[in-house]
């Protein structure tokens, strides 16, 4: 037996390069992008729609990319709200990656938007490993998922800039203390921002926009 050492290629380095290319393309068009992650049913789509309403009131043009394993339900909701939108079906892949988003950006009318929400596949594990080239990462958790979401997925939250704890109006009904989720997040990410939201009623949406830098 003998050993050969060397560089045989870093498979994630390529993803980082593609993410930088996506970022450069977005900047070329003056677009600010948000990578929206979170579990299935946490309220990602509803929150995006509410944020889009507020941003449009401010005169900003908003678009959305919907990432799903299959189907186009979220895309249809974006279209119904009048947003330029595009669907990415990952075909069983558990996350969006920079390569797929790069192709989507080639097709997307970037000249028609100032803000782009990229809704990732509903999943709290895998998207963390794949930067897309967005300006800011947002994770949406809903209180109905329980108060242990950060402790169950700490690496995801350690790398996330902003967390929206959504459906806080339901917290009392499901016996969950949203402060406990926030405290766990602050432990793994002392620089992150936490916002309590209730997308359906619009609560916290302005604060969330401000945390995202809008």
């Amino acid at each position, binding site marked *: *037996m*003998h050993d*050969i050492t060397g560089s045989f290629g870093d498979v994630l380095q390529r993803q980082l390069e593609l993410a930088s290319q996506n970022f450069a393309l977005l900047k070329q068009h003056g677009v600010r992008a948000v990578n929206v992650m979170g579990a299935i049913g946490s309220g990602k789509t509803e929150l995006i729609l509410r944020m889009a309403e507020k941003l449009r009131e401010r005169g900003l043009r908003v678009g959305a990319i919907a990432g799903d394993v299959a189907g186009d339900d979220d895309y249809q909701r974006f279209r119904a709200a009048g947003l330029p939108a595009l669907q990415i079906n990952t075909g069983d892949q558990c996350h969006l990656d920079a390569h797929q988003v790069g192709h989507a950006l080639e097709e997307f009318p970037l000249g028609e938007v100032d803000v782009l929400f990229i809704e990732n596949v509903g999943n709290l594990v895998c998207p963390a490993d794949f930067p897309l080239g967005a300006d800011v990462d947002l994770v949406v958790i809903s209180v109905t998922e329980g108060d242990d979401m950060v*402790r169950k997925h700490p690496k995801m939250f350690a790398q996330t800039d902003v967390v929206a704890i959504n459906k806080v109006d339901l917290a009392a009904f499901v016996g969950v203390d949203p402060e406990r989720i926030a405290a766990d997040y602050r432990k793994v990410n002392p620089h992150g921002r936490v916002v309590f939201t209730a997308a359906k009623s619009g609560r916290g949406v302005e604060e969330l926009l401000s945390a995202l830098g809008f």
Partner: protein
Amino acid sequence: MHEYSLAQALLSGLQDYLRQHPIPGRVAKVHVRKGELLSLSEWALKEAWRILTEGTELSGSELVLESVPVRVRCPSCGYEGEARYLTEEGWHIAVPVLSCPRCGSPVEITEGRDLAIVGLTMTDPPAP
């Protein structure tokens, strides 16, 4: 959950390399560095490797994983080194905290996102 697609990417990369730079002998071990920021199961990566290499020239080779600790650089105080890890009872894993261990400012990641083949162990070819 994405261990198969990443194992496939490692395999394709290595096969391309070996086509361009043929090495005598058989590959017995493939040494991989895996960053601790990644959410990848070692067991699943090894199992994916075993299944995906079946029927290829790498069939029977073992994936040997080396864990790469997260390293950070602090733009505020200039610290460069290992990140602080948070270990809480009941979490069962150590979580890298992306905050300067010296001054508490936000940091840049310099290592810990790697998934790269860095070496091969070859069986010696039969003597001529």
